[in-house]
């Protein structure tokens, strides 16, 4: 197990919660001027960096520990998009959401003792976890290079980079990619995506396959 230094975790906790809080706030606020956006982000960062119990991060970390690297990455990508004046989207892309929801479900069942797979402990594996991180980093970089799913890929890349360079947030690869808040978001996004698919099917039912006219079948029947 290669674990991050406690001082590094403290700094990460403050900054990551600041980014997540700023992204959330800017997502729910109506469009505001660039200068106002900058002031909001600066105020939140300053608030989170307050010493000891004066910082909201002190209490957030007490209850929730650290945001995953991926949630932090999503916050950064969201802030960057908002910076460019794009409208917020409140759900994760369906493929990412489904993947996270499924992995999280298995891992949390395992943690609660319903399963006995030891999945979370595998995130400390000194060989498999770094290899997976490297493969993911290369894969997501190629994705961005090709212009495929640039937002999710960039967020993933931030998570992998935090893990590989600094072992943040905890030294466990799963904690870099998932946390219960992100899992809840992924689960909600999956449900929304499923409802959209169902609604689309209801609105545009598939046409029934056309049956061949009876006389076309006659020769075949006669041949029997």
């Amino acid at each position: 197990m290669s674990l991050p230094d406690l001082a590094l975790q403290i700094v990460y906790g403050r900054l990551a919660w600041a980014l997540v809080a700023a992204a959330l706030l800017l997502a729910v606020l109506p469009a505001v001027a660039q200068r106002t956006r900058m002031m909001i982000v600066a105020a939140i960062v300053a608030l989170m960096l307050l010493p000891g119990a004066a910082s909201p991060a002190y209490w957030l970390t007490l209850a929730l520990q650290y945001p995953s690297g991926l949630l932090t990455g999503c916050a950064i990508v969201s802030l960057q998009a908002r910076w460019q004046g794009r409208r917020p989207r409140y759900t994760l892309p369906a493929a990412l959401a489904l993947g996270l929801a499924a992995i999280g479900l298995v891992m949390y069942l395992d943690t609660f003792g319903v399963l006995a797979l030891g999945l979370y402990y595998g995130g400390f594996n000194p060989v498999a976890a770094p290899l997976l991180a490297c493969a993911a980093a290369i894969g997501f970089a190629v994705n961005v290079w090709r212009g495929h799913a640039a937002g999710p890929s960039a967020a993933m890349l931030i998570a992998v980079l935090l893990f590989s360079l600094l072992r943040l947030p905890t030294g466990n690869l799963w904690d870099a990619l998932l946390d219960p808040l992100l899992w809840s978001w992924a689960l909600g996004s999956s449900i929304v995506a499923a409802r959209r698919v169902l609604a689309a099917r209801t609105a545009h039912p598939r046409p029934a396959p056309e049956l061949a006219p009876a006389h076309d079948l006659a020769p075949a029947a006669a041949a029997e």
Partner: protein
Amino acid sequence: MGALHPPLPRPAPSARPVRLLALLCIAAALAATAAETWRWSRAALHHERPATLSHTGAPVTGVTELSHAIIPMPAGVPSAHASSLASLPDGGLIVFWWAGSRESGPDVKVYASRWSNGKWSKNWEVASRDSLGDALGYGVRRIGNPVAWTAADGTLHLYVVATGLGGWAAARIVQMQSHDQGATFTVKRVLPMSPLFNTSTLVRSAPTALADGSWWLPAYFEIGHKYPMLVSFDAHGDPQRVTRIGTRTKSLQPSLVPVSPTEVRAWMRDDGDSRRVQQAVSRDGGQTWSDMEATALFNDSTALAVLRLSNGSLLMLHNREDIDGSARSALTLSVSTDARTWRPLRDVIDGVAGDEFSYPAMYVTGDELHITYTYQRRAIAHHQYRINLQKDMP
């Protein structure tokens, strides 16, 4: 939070920023790969091997009490629980426990006392929720069980249960270190043990020494299902791996004892209906674990301690079923030579219904056995015994 935005119909961004972002991502991937390669090239291989003991073969015939005492409590503190014993580099012993107004109270702190020249020193404060909160950079709500271990290099490691938002189900494990025989401690880290906000893992039982100076720390998960775990540490106190012990969901607080170079046993507190000491076995030196049928020993959800003597015999300190039906009013010492059958050696204390003598800890130095336990939830009691082997008898 609207993290991953689909591009809206906007003027198409120029190719340069997009290409710049792509290049940054490629650079990030290369940096990640380089960092992992560098770390891998410097990683030391850690081979766990259970410590094997020499067998003298002489069976234990009994124990003779040399002394008993109540360890000095902090003034005006009515509640105490969960003691843990460790050796000191200078040859003495040190005990840790928590005390405060009540279990889970905000004023609960971890205290320590030193045993030397046949008596306990005045206690001193080791950790509080404020001191842990200051060191961790985030709040701690409650302080719980301490577990101590002295490494081969003389560093004293202390693992303390500290909760987040909630009761013991929100518990985390804080690792502390002392380089001055327990006089002062610094917080090293919070052990990452679960993906659920890192909650619901606790420690209670004493660590187990491995052959190369490393050790195993027994731990357990306890929200809903309760199951035992172990964390393996290298000789410097850095965690190496975590594993679950067996697949049971109603046993906790494992005591781990190697019985051969490859076989390790775990005895556990029972949280189910069987009311028997639970057990599990590893036949590959602690890598993988299988459940075993429960022992015949009574256990009504009470903590126990097991250790191996230099002659190969096993001692278990546990609550036995009392004649009045109490689960924690009698504390007894049992012995086994084969890790299967246990015979009672002697009662350490036998009270009446409503008494509580619980959460035992043991430590052996030479032919002396030291025992501490929670005395009526008010204090920590200590007994010192001489272990009698058959060759000692006339």
